[in-house]
């Protein structure tokens, strides 16, 4: 394959111009023999073609053991995005407010007055399925490092969770453990966990999803990138010791299907140390603030390997490391173990020789370990030394940094439309509509409020410190959380805010990946619009099954296409994200779950609205209108155990008009409340506004639909608002201007949730069921 030095090799679909590869620095290197090398490569997850490419980047020679580990991790799906990369290019990532799009540790947008926020979402699905507490905790740790690496102070987290049904003890264990892990880590760091979402569905039984999002704030000029530069500059490793825990952890786990074999990967469990992370936040932000680092990057998946090679590659430089200078947690670690360890709470920094003393002293002051482990070079090579070996024979890896980081193979996997899509689309819930005239709809509403996917999430968020930093303006339980923008530690508190929400209905995506993904964006935007925020940008976490299966890849492709089309229409860029594939157990893929994490901007915290009814006598208005759209609904699933049908249509134009109507109304102080209609439809939205406001309602729904559709249809682009009588006229003018459909439903007040001719339930009873369901489900005894 490598006939001459200038050949272009493309065994895995990539092109390498070998004349551009920087020359090796090692005189000799202990390579594997030609027989064993490919075998080990395959054991480590590379294909034979990929190994040929590895050899090509190494000038045709076999790899050393350390090199093979390094390559196999860097070129794993988790680190290289080799199956998803081409699809992700569809996402719009530019916009006037975007300071940093995908490609860095986190995306960054401007939020006004010189303020910027960095944010990103990441999955920790596979580790959490093995050990939920530590898996979820270290997931939070990882995403938080991505944020402060950028120079931003983390001010809020969200968590997006999926489990199987809670009647299974294992699912309760996973759910309880994950929530506890997320809480324990975030609470200790003093970063408020202000929101998130959780769904329960059999589809996630073998493979739970734990996605964590973190948001940080900074002044625009504080933006730091992980770009290594300055040959001769020392490279320092901050934070925890390096152990064998997590060797081949996240990256190996996340790049393979999850089944019983995973049991053997137990030693890969990493234990989080939030205390050390908290100190790292303080040390790094303090040093960044006075220009202490040339570059800073966190150690995530593939540990030192990934952060060092990416730093070198971004800066077009080389890097020299000595594994024996890395503070080890255990004796006798082999070079490759040090290089690929995923021990948590570590940061890699490049400093100038002049700044080194300050960096060391600052670390010492905070009690943070700091070691010089190497330096930046001008060789373009990523060179790993083993200081225990005699000089001259101490090089255990010598790799072209840029190719290692960026020349991973890229695939266009085959795709095929799954046959089931047509089957499920044919399902027509008409017979259930007819039934709705004979059932007790009040009882159905109570049943819906007791759905694990509808009921209050209080049991979760009360375990999260959602108020630390004293900047949480709208607490969990609303459509979106609102957090004040500022850096109080630097004497800056503003009246600006950001609104945060995460959304994805996996059932919709299973039934229709294109529209389902669009709805995820629409709902997230709607949620931030309800509190009065302007949707600004998103991060995403794309959770799918094995991309090497054509059906799965079709779903992935369609979801990405749907999400990116919707982003383009709505003018919302994707500034960061994460892909988690191979979410399967025993060959059963999860529902496609492209989670959207939304950041909205609030120019004045005086103009914020929440979902609860505020005042008896207020008029209740529905912005948008209801159609007969029960396909894929929570009603079908929870009451009839059916996952089928045509999911609600989405008209993005109408969606944007509805949202801007409500945003304008919030800004004009017209509204007492605004709440989006999502899972469970209008009846559930009404009940939620009643319950959180401790006020009943008396409404009539004259939409001409069958009662069940009228109550539980999940038609998109609907927002339920309430307002005092003296504001109704002005509001009418506003909706008229935006030309969106709307209707007056009734009034707030009383002790009952009354929907004329359909529902009449006591507020107390509804509130009780809504409130205790989740806790009861968790505490149930088999």
């Amino acid at each position, binding site marked *: 394959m490598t006939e001459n030095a200038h050949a272009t090799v493309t065994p895995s679909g990539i092109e390498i111009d070998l004349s551009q590869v920087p020359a090796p620095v090692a005189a000799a290197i202990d390579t594997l023999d030609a027989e064993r090398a490919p075998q080990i490569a395959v054991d480590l997850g590379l294909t034979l073609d990929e190994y040929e490419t590895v050899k090509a980047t190494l000038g045709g020679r076999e790899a050393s053991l350390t090199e093979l580990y390094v390559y196999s991790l860097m070129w794993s799906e988790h680190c290289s995005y080799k199956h998803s990369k081409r699809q992700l290019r569809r996402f719009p990532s530019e916009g006037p407010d975007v300071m940093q799009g995908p490609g860095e540790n986190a995306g960054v947008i401007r939020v006004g007055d010189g303020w910027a926020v960095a944010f990103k979402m990441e999955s920790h699905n596979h580790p959490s399925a093995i050990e939920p507490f530590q898996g979820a905790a270290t997931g939070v740790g990882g995403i938080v490092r991505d944020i402060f690496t950028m120079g931003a102070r983390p001010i809020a987290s969200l968590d997006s969770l999926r489990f199987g049904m809670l009647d299974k003890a294992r699912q309760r264990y996973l759910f309880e453990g994950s929530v506890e892990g997320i809480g324990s880590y975030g609470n200790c760091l003093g970063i408020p966990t202000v929101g998130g979402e959780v769904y329960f569905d059999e589809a996630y039984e073998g493979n739970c999803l734990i996605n964590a999002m973190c948001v940080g704030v900074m002044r625009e000029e504080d933006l730091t990138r992980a770009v290594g530069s300055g040959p001769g500059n020392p490279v320092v490793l901050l934070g925890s010791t390096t152990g064998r*825990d997590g060797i081949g952890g996240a990256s190996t786990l996340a790049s393979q299907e999850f089944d019983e074999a995973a049991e053997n990967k*137990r*030693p890969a*469990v990493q*234990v989080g*140390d939030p*205390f*050390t992370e908290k100190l790292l936040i303080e040390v790094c932000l303090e040093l960044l603030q006075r220009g202490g680092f040339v570059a800073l990057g966190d150690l995530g998946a593939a540990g030192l390997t990934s952060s060092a090679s990416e730093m070198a590659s971004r800066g077009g430089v080389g890097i020299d490391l000595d594994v024996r200078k890395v503070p080890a947690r*255990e004796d006798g670690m082999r070079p490759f173990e040090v290089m690929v360890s995923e021990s*948590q709470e570590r940061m890699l920094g490049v400093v100038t020789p002049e700044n080194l003393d300050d960096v060391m002293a600052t670390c010492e002051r905070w009690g943070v370990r700091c070691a010089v482990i190497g330096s930046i070079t001008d060789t373009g090579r990523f060179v790993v030394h083993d200081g225990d070996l005699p000089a001259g024979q101490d090089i255990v890896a010598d790799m072209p940094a840029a190719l290692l980081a960026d020349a991973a193979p890229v695939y266009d996997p085959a795709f095929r439309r799954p046959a089931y899509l047509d089957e499920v689309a044919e399902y027509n819930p008409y017979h259930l509509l007819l039934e709705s005239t004979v059932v007790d709809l009040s009882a159905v509403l109570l049943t819906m409020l007791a759905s694990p996917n509808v009921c209050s999430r209080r049991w979760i968020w009360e375990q999260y410190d959602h108020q630390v930093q004293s900047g949480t303006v709208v607490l969990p339980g609303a459509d979106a959380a609102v957090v004040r923008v500022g850096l109080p530690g630097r004497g800056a508190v503003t009246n600006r805010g950001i609104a945060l929400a995460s959304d994805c209905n996996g059932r919709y995506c299973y039934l229709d990946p294109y529209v389902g993904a669009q709805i995820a964006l629409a709902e997230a935007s709607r949620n931030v619009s309800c509190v009065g925020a302007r949707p600004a940008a998103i991060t995403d976490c794309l959770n799918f099954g094995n991309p090497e299966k054509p059906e799965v890849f079709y779903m992935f492709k369609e979801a990405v296409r749907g999400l990116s089309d919707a982003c383009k229409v709505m003018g919302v860029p994707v500034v960061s994200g994460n892909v988690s594939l191979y979410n399967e157990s025993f060959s059963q893929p999860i529902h496609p779950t492209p989670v959207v994490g939304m950041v909205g901007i609030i120019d004045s915290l005086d103009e914020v609205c929440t979902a609860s009814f505020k005042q008896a006598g207020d008029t209740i208005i529905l912005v948008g209108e209801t159609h007969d759209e029960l396909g894929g609904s929570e009603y079908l699933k929870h009451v009839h155990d059916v996952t089928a049908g045509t999911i609600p249509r989405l008209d993005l134009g109408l969606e944007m008009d509805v949202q801007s109507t409500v945003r304008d109304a919030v800004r004009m102080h017209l509204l007492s409340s605004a709440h989006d209609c999502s899972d469970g439809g209008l009846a559930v939205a009404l009940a939620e506004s009643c319950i959180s406001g401790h006020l009943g309602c008396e409404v009539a729904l004259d939409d001409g639909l069958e009662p069940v559709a009228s109550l539980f249809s999940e038609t998109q682009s609907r927002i339920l608002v309430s307002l005092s009588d003296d504001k109704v006229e002005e509001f009418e003018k506003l909706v008229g201007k935006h030309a969106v459909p709307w209707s007056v439903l009734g009034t707030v007040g009383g002790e009952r949730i009354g929907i004329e001719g359909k529902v009449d339930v006591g507020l107390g009873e509804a509130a009780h069921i809504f409130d205790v369901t989740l806790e009861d489900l968790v505490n149930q005894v088999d």
Partner: protein
Amino acid sequence: MKRYEIFVTGKEGIFDPAGEQSKRALANLGYQGIDELTIGKLIRLDVEDDVTEETVREMCRKLLANPVIEDFSITLLEEA
């Protein structure tokens, strides 16, 4: 009635931040010569005579220890 004592400790290679920080704290208090400090659990279980060690082992595997990251050992004490 009898008493079982159950020791639950972190598996080999599993990081123990609590032990690590406690060790540091002792060093800061001026204590020298400490090589390693790990923190595990000591569970005392007083049970009826007919509860066998096998049953206790099962309790450990199911609930009292986390087999993914912890080892456990069981000792029967004579009298509760």
